């Protein structure tokens, strides 16, 4: 493999010279590039529009060991932006093809593909990586990765985050001519759950989800509208006001839903959904992914001032970018040292469990919680349920010593246990 002379000279200039715009603790030297190439491990989550761009940028930026995970296979509709794929690749695993093509372009690089769902990998898998970079298209997937990254975080006895346990996440997202890049340092910057209000209810869907892995009735309806209609009605534009058109759409959406075992396609939903596909453009993915790759490079080398902490891009009306320093929610259920709660000492354990499931921040994360104090279970589901059941009717003052107790809350739906800082206090009349 031949590469031009001075292939890494740009990177060397960045990493081996002191400068004025560097991160705190930057130590220039050739060891940095060696670290990037030999020891640093990066995980790219998603091998689609953002993932292909991320792999290219990270590979060209000197990272030598990159893993990529994606459960999807390649569809024809991906080819207008997922540039590592060709028509002949349709049906193959995105992660595998992306990895192979990236290694073809950059000598001395290892890209390891994982054709799997992110939920199928355990915390020990994710623990291997220095930085995890997200090229995802859904809020649920982001929240899962957020919970994973935050699960590694510990707090010092003085309440400050233990910086050695901070697992950085870099997240990118795009939609047409708009996008964002953000840096998540658990315990330091806000995590996803701290800033959930940034995400309005999703009403648009990525095209690749519609084409290959529909999961909801809306995906099936969009498939009928954006793929099937033009195929079978080349000269006629779809008009939602024409009854025959709408019924055709509904019938096709139902067929698709049946094929994938999805419930819930109704005529009413079809009518409500037939608008607004996300246009997906290579150039917006390029901007956002490159920003994420640069932030990853800066996180690992400290060679320049890092993004703090959210960059928004809009190309609709001119070119507009805005960097915002969002703040953590100190009571965040996912990344804080514990969600504060108060209960009277005479409260029973059963009632406390009830309070937990009704709690505004915790409630949505819990279905059937188990509780413990340190390693001592108060109420456990499963094997110890019978043994701990009598505790349900006991009062808290019999079970724990107050006034402040750190509870560990566990639940099947959680990636890792949550903490609650419970204060035992008589309610004021």
């Amino acid at each position, binding site marked *: 493999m031949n590469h*031009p002379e001075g292939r890494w*000279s740009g990177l060397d200039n960045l990493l081996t010279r002191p*400068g*004025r715009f560097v991160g705190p603790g930057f130590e220039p030297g050739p060891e940095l590039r060696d670290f990037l190439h030999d020891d640093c491990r990066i995980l790219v989550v998603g091998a689609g529009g953002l993932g292909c761009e991320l792999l290219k940028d990270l590979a060209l930026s000197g990272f030598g060991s990159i893993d990529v995970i994606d459960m999807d296979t390649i569809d024809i509709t991906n080819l207008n932006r997922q540039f590592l794929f060709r028509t002949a690749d349709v049906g193959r695993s995105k992660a595998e093809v992306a990895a192979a093509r990236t290694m073809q372009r950059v000598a001395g690089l290892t890209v390891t593909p994982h054709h799997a769902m992110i939920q199928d990998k355990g915390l020990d898998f994710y623990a291997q990586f220095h930085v995890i970079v997200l090229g995802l298209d859904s809020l649920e997937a982001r929240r899962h990765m957020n919970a994973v990254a935050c699960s590694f975080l510990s707090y010092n006895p003085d309440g400050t985050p233990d910086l050695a346990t901070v697992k950085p996440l870099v997240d990118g997202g795009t939609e047409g001519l708009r996008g964002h890049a953000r840096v998540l340092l658990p315990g330091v910057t806000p995590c996803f759950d701290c800033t959930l209000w940034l995400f309005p209810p999703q009403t648009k869907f990525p095209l690749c989800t519609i084409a290959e892995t529909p999961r909801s009735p809306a995906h099936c309806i969009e498939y009928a509208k954006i793929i099937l209609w033009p195929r079978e009605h080349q000269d006629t534009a779809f008009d939602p006001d024409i009854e025959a058109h709408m019924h055709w759409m509904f019938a096709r959406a139902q067929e698709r839903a049946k094929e994938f075992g999805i419930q819930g396609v109704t005529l009413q939903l079809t009518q409500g959904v037939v608008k607004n596909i996300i246009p*997906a*453009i290579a150039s917006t*993915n*390029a901007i956002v992914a490159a920003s994420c790759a640069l932030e990853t490079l800066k996180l690992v080398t400290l060679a320049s001032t890092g993004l703090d902490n959210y960059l928004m891009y809009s190309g609709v009306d001119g070119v507009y970018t805005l960097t915002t320093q969002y703040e953590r929610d100190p009571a965040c259920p996912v990344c804080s040292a514990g969600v504060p709660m108060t209960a009277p000492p005479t409260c029973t354990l059963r009632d406390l469990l009830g309070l937990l499931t009704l709690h505004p921040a915790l409630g949505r994360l819990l279905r059937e919680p188990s509780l413990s104090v340190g390693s001592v279970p108060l109420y456990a589901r499963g094997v110890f349920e019978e043994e701990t059941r009598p505790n349900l009717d006991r009062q808290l003052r019999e079970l724990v010593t107050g006034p402040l107790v750190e509870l560990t809350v566990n639940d099947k739906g959680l990636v890792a246990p949550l903490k609650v800082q419970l204060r035992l206090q008589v309610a004021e009349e």
Partner: protein
Amino acid sequence: VRVFDLSWSRSDGRHLRDRQCATTASHPPCRLSSAKVLIVGCTGLGAEVAKNIVLAGVGSVTLVDDTPCAQRDPGNFLVLADADGSRTVAQACAAMLREMNPLVDVQAQAGPPAGSGLEREAHGLVLDLTGDPASVSASSVACRAAGLPFFAGGSRGTIGWAFADLGEHRFVVERRGPGPDGAKQAEACSTSYPSWARAMAADVGGRSLKRVHPVYLMLRAQALSPSGAGEGAGAAAADAIARLDEELGRPSSLQAEALESMTCTAHGLPAVSAVLGGILANDVLKAVSGRGRPMDNFFLYSIADGAGVVDRWGDA
């Protein structure tokens, strides 16, 4: 709203149309698919812009750059690691781009990037991505004479820049109407763009130092200095800025030192080229379709501020 353009009928036309549907949802297909774009300079930035507009589905792209592959910009990802070192980068890029989207007519034109006799009249839009001020200046003059929309751009070290000269440009911007369910309303707009020459001669003294981006000063200095875009350009730019400061009677601009370290390498960091490439490509799509406001008239980027700045220099 019609999503597909019937002119793309091929034997397996059904599938080929499907691949473009996501892009065409936001840009009128007929204008995009008849756009003929000329890209001068197959640098890392050139490769990024070419990739983006080829994937989006322009009609044709012509590449001009006779640099042999063995001496290519290492950030040019279109050229494979085991490419034949004696082919030109234009040829290697064209081959890869044709694979990426067989619907687009991609050609490599022989000859050096900054040559005369380029058939600019055969194209609808020109991009000079060489980063060489002499080439940019010549391309700009030729495009103005032929009435062609013109973009330029470059990336060096940790900085990048883009420039647009679309002459008298008319376009439509869609705005959401009042109320929570406001229907989209189209607003007709127009902008008069200054030429590269005017942009390089704009009055710097009238602005406070804080509002003059160091990358713009670098472009001014490069336009003045004879060493152009070579290895010593950073130092020459720093010198020229110091002289500008003196002329304007200002305390020495701290930017000069920063600029030197930013620009000492000839090539841009690959991720910087990717950001610039995305910005330029989105603006090409806007210019061709007449929908959305293109940059007016510079986009200036450095990884230290991370976000990039749009700035207007020069009177139309």
